[in-house]
């Protein structure tokens, strides 16, 4: 049974309609309820003790450990010989760049990621507009905001924005998957089960159920064996990580010895119980944290085993299902988020793709359909071109507009045009993807251990706009989250990837002020103690004293 859903954000994106299946599954129809527990929001690629890189969607930035030149060289199949690398760690480090870049492509080349980016931009613009309104009322943000919003003299607009922000944050965490998994007694052999999670504050609307992969978990000691099921929420992060891991593994197999590849697989499938002060079974369970890289792989294996009785499938199938899911997902719109019909969760879309694909065919030929035609793509691209104009002079426009325009004209449209030119397989067939990799755009900012590599097609003045944009983004989050009247400088505390490479102060350098500790934080009434820098300037413009 299908029904037509016309989403306002779909209209913004230029998509006329989606054919969305009613949530109907032969597997696990009951919905389990869990208490919401958030976890980190950056897409960090790490194997517990080692972090190799991270992708920051809202900042259009990638951060990788190690030398950028080595990383780029390895991603382009240059002279570096990974066969000669003694350790897998070196290979992982060199492949981190390609792994994070794949996140960038999956995010800006699919409707899921594009709508999420526009959500960030929209929210930031709303915050900026509200700040301007406050200034016109001769008011400013009063810290801590969470206390002010409970007082009578706080304007209704501020109260509304604060509560919407928290509600949106929760819905975004559900969409992205920035929430910890959940445990339950007993085994489950379902490919997915539906879960609902509730935040510790009232919501404007009920949280929709999302699918979760029931992962078998256990802990064995000399005396006993404890087994339980860990529910890994199936959201944007596990989908992106599954894709990046699949292309990374393909590349590794092409250029590394089998011993290294086997070691890689061992590391990717390791699980760990985070150390705590308590050794109790319950703390072992609550601290169990599997890596997100293989969730889609395991889910697909379990699904196909049930559906077809076979667990072997070509790796490209993960990419095909994921791409179809990401092309039919939409982040809840900031304007229309109240109505759950107007968004589509990536996990739910993934499950829909599995349910709607004809699995009776040979798996090599099985290709889940991406329901976005060439006409749809033309319409989406035309819509962007019409609504968001390119920036000829970034210094004359607001940084939010500059970044939005850059993302649309230098990243999103080129990525969608690649789909038009080569078909959706350019995203879902590893060989096609690698064949055309040099045609794919790269992030505006790539940070390595030894410096910044701005995008080669970065327009003049974009770096300035990017800095203002990320500072504003960070300040908005700090103001919304602050429990006390303290706002930490993102440069002093490295709150933005790569920010330590940027100079915000003048005439003296940030490093001088930081080593003197003459900046660090804003506290109430301390603006004039802060040095001349972008951070203090932004605070002053927002009316902080």
């Amino acid at each position, binding site marked *: 049974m299908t029904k037509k859903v016309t989403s306002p954000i779909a209209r913004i994106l230029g998509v006329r309609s989606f054919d969305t299946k009613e949530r109907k599954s032969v597997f696990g129809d009951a919905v389990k309820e869990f208490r919401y527990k958030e976890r980190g929001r950056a897409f960090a690629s790490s194997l517990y003790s080692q972090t190799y890189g991270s992708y920051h969607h809202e900042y259009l930035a990638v951060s990788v450990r190690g030398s950028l030149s080595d990383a780029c060289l390895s991603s382009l199949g240059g002279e570096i010989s990974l066969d000669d690398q003694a350790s897998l760690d070196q290979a992982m480090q060199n492949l981190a760049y390609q792994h994070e870049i794949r996140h960038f492509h999956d995010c800006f080349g699919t409707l899921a990621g594009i709508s999420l980016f526009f959500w960030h931009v929209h929210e930031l613009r709303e915050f900026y507009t509200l700040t301007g309104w406050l200034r016109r009322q001769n008011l400013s943000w009063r810290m801590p905001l969470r206390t002010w919003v409970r007082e009578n003299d706080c304007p209704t607009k501020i109260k509304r924005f604060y509560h919407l922000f928290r509600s949106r944050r929760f819905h975004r965490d559900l969409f992205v998957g920035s929430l910890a998994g959940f445990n339950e007694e007993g085994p489950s052999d379902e490919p997915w089960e539906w879960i609902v999670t509730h935040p510790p504050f009232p919501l404007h609307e009920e949280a929709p159920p999302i699918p979760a992969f029931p992962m078998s978990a256990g802990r064995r000691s000399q005396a006993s064996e404890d087994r339980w099921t860990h529910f890994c929420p199936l959201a944007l992060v596990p989908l992106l990580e599954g894709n990046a891991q699949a292309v990374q593994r393909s590349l590794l197999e092409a250029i590394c010895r089998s011993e290294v590849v086997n070691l890689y697989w061992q590391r990717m499938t390791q699980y760990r119980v*985070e*150390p705590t002060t308590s050794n109790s079974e319950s703390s072992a369970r609550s*601290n169990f944290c599997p890596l997100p890289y293989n969730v889609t792989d395991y889910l697909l294996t379990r699904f196909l085993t049930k559906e077809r009785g076979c667990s072997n499938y070509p790796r490209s199938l993960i990419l095909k299902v994921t791409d179809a899911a990401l092309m039919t997902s939409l982040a809840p719109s900031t304007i229309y988020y109240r109505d759950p019909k107007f968004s589509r969760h990536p996990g739910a879309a993934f499950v829909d793709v599995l349910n709607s694909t004809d699995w009776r065919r040979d798996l090599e030929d099985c290709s889940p359909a991406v329901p976005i035609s060439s006409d749809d793509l033309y319409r989406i691209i035309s819509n962007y071109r019409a609504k968001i104009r390119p920036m000829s002079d970034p210094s004359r426009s607001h940084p939010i507009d500059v970044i939005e325009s850059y993302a649309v004209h230098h990243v999103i449209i080129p990525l969608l045009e690649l789909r038009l030119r080569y078909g959706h397989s350019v995203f879902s067939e590893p060989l096609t993807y690698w064949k055309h990799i040099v045609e794919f755009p790269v992030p505006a900012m790539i940070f390595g251990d030894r410096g910044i590599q701005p995008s080669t097609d970065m327009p003049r003045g974009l770096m300035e706009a990017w800095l203002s944009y990320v500072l504003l983004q960070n300040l908005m989050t*700090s103001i919304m*989250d602050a*429990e*006390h009247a*303290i706002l*930490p400088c*993102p440069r002093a*505390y*490295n*709150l933005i990837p790569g920010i330590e490479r940027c100079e915000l102060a003048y005439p003296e350098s940030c*490093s*001088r002020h930081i*080593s*003197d*500790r*003459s900046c*660090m*934080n804003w*506290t109430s009434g*301390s603006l004039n*103690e802060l040095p001349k820098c972008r951070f203090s300037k932004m605070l002053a413009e927002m009316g902080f004293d």
Partner: protein
Amino acid sequence: MPTRKFYESEALLDSLTESFQELALNTSQCQALIGQLSAEKADRLNDLLVSLLTQPEMQAHLQQHLKDVEVPGPSSGGLGSHLRSQVRQGRIVRVDFFQFGKCWEKTSTSLLGLALALITLNPAGLPVPTYETVRGVWSSWVALKRPGDDVAIDTYEAVLRTQCILLNGRDPGRFPTLVEIQSHAGPRTEREVVTGLTRLRDLGIVKVDFWGDQEGDLSHRENTWRPVV
């Protein structure tokens, strides 16, 4: 007047920074100095300083003491304080936050913090003293006030300044001689430095580590001096 603001886990770093500024030394070396301490010793020093800063005597100068504050960022550079911090997955997540007005009580505590770090860093491997010991020295030290005790305070600062320079030099295990201290005491004459050292010694704030000649000859130029903590 600038204030001193720091999270609990930054107490040692803030103390060293304030001391280096007071001693006109390059503050960019503070982080490196902490890096030379073992993690355990750095934690204990940090906790000792937080204990001193939360004494009743400090309350008058404490502009803000916020509890249970979220530590910003992935790399706050903080130390693992064991007093009030909440640690999650090996990382400090919540601590206290302090804001002090510029005052001698805070500066003197910072200088004592530097003395503690220098003593602990000595290759002789001196242990971190107990809170009671440090509290006793602090009481004597903070009682000195400018301008009446200018000579003693300047001399103590010269001892610390010289020790910092020695630590980065060829002989990090040695404490400074009277001559070296005088050479880093600005306009203070050797006679004034001896007077300052004698006063500090009587208060139990410094002591002779090695007698240059006859024991008890406080004015001998080869005597080496060290802070007591």
